[in-house]
């Protein structure tokens, strides 16, 4: 899974496969982080709640 694990080989197969994987994981991770931080910021700014 990581370049330091035994099974890792620096070849096209691994780069393409794990490239795709890490791309997806990063989008999800960054997206969620963005949402959470922005939500926290919005909350701090007093948005949300009943009044919307």
């Amino acid at each position, binding site marked *: 899974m990581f370049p330091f694990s*035994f099974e890792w*080989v620096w070849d096209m197969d691994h780069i393409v496969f794990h490239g795709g994987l890490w791309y997806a994981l990063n989008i999800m991770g960054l997206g969620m982080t963005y949402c959470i931080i922005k939500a926290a910021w919005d909350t701090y700014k007093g948005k949300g709640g009943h009044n919307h």
Partner: protein
Amino acid sequence: MSTLDDQAKEVSEDVADRVVETPTQKEGNQVDGSGGFIILFFFIGLIASLILGWIIYPKLLYSQKKQPIDFNHAIHMDLVDDGCESCHFFREDGSYSGVPKLAQCIDCHEEVQGETENEAVFVQEYVQKQKEVPWLVYSRQPDCVFFSHVVHVKTAQIDCTQCHGHIGESTNLKIYEENRITGYSRDIWGKNMSGYKKNSWDRMKMDDCAECHAKEKGMESSVQTKKDACFVCHK
């Protein structure tokens, strides 16, 4: 151990409190509560779990076992001609004898040698009773591992210390820490919980074998990994 248990109880009581409290709180609570307060709790949780993970967990994970006899490698090394191989020898078929059997020890220890208490116990409890010493082997690998000492030591001329460290110069045997889950010595994972190693002998996991094999042997016989094949170190 007890401290952790207590802590755990405290935590769970806390949880219980909170659970009971929750329904009564209702909407009113939503607005109050300062941000700093929340962050403080975040850090309390963070630090508590870090302590748990880094300090308490290792203590819980490993049991401390004393060797049956506190063997002095250094003394023996002075007395023998052939270094480690004097006692940890190779058999003719290339197999490795490992930890010496009682029969070997008896060659010299038929009678009590020297005055240490260890020696007396050894002769009384084991030599005279013809009982094998239940040594705890720091470097014992799982059953799935085939390690060829002869290839490493005779062919590749690797020094024993590369994997075993300077145990040959030790005057006594350190405490054997046994992983309660796996049953293996702590030396396999390494003393350092994070897996960081300074010396080549600090850890004996598969990756350590693989690292050296990749570097020294440069084999590409495995179709899957382009490294050394599985059926080299596994049986």
